[in-house]
């Protein structure tokens, strides 16, 4: 089988992913093939608190696939990186847990999602969270900065998964933890299907 990065048109895929999540940022309650919002987070098992401390507008564009806080949230004072932070709900929850002594950096490649998450952070009065534009295969984070890396339903959209995990390894401190919620196929996907960008983005 050919190397996946030789098969997939990376720029076309990123363009389609940006387009899909631009739609979600603009209209979170529209019809999508995935769930969004607070009811979805509750169904995935997010802890009632601090989820109940976030207003609806901070949750409505949430589009994760699982609960990256399944084994608990980050500790007070820790530094957290949220890969593919989207509308920012996971980052806001992490910011709640780490408190004023901690810091959270969300990274996303969709400008409209960054606009949304940044304006939400201002509305929520959170000054321990920031959102940076970038690719998760090339994180705009210094080496060994993070105590915790989280990701929710994003790595499946990246063909270079090994590259993403290398970046996670790079930005984590020794002893740091990553928690990933994602979708995984455990059988080979035909090359023609890999080339079909529609099948990546749903």
């Amino acid at each position, binding site marked *: 089988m050919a190397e996946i990065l030789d098969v997939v048109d990376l720029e076309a895929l990123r363009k389609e992913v940006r387009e899909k999540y631009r739609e979600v940022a603009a209209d979170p309650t529209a019809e999508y093939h995935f769930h969004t919002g607070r009811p979805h987070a509750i169904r995935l098992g997010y802890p009632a608190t601090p989820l109940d401390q976030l207003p609806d507008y901070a949750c409505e564009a949430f589009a994760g696939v699982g609960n990256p806080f399944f084994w608990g949230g980050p500790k007070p004072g820790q530094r957290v990186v949220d890969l593919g932070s989207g509308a920012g709900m996971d980052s806001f929850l992490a910011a709640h847990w780490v408190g004023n002594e901690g810091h959270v950096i969300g990274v996303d490649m969709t400008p409209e999602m960054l606009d949304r998450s940044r304006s939400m952070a201002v509305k929520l009065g959170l000054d321990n969270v920031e959102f940076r534009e970038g690719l998760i295969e090339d994180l705009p984070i210094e080496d060994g900065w993070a105590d915790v890396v989280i990701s929710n339903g994003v790595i499946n959209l990246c063909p270079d998964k090994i590259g993403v995990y290398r970046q996670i390894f790079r930005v*984590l401190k020794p002893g740091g*933890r990553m928690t990933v919620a994602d979708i995984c196929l455990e059988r080979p996907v035909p090359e023609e299907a890999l080339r079909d960008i529609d099948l990546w983005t749903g």
Partner: protein
Amino acid sequence: MNRADLTANQQTAMLADRYTQRADAYQVRITSRLRLQSLTEKERRACLGRIRRRLSGADDEQYVYRGNVFIATAVKADHPSDIQ
């Protein structure tokens, strides 16, 4: 088997097996069903129509397998010599 022989999702699965903990949260088809049920009748009809159109144009190779949603966690080794 080397990396070139694996799809990206298999690579993720392989890594996931080496995580310290792993939980299969649910299967994608379950969330798809819930999503479909959450739509209004009109939206559901439109959604199913698009699915039928897509499937009618797909060949056998394009019936891609269902994925599992997983949650996995791992700790970076304290010292390079700990890394396998």
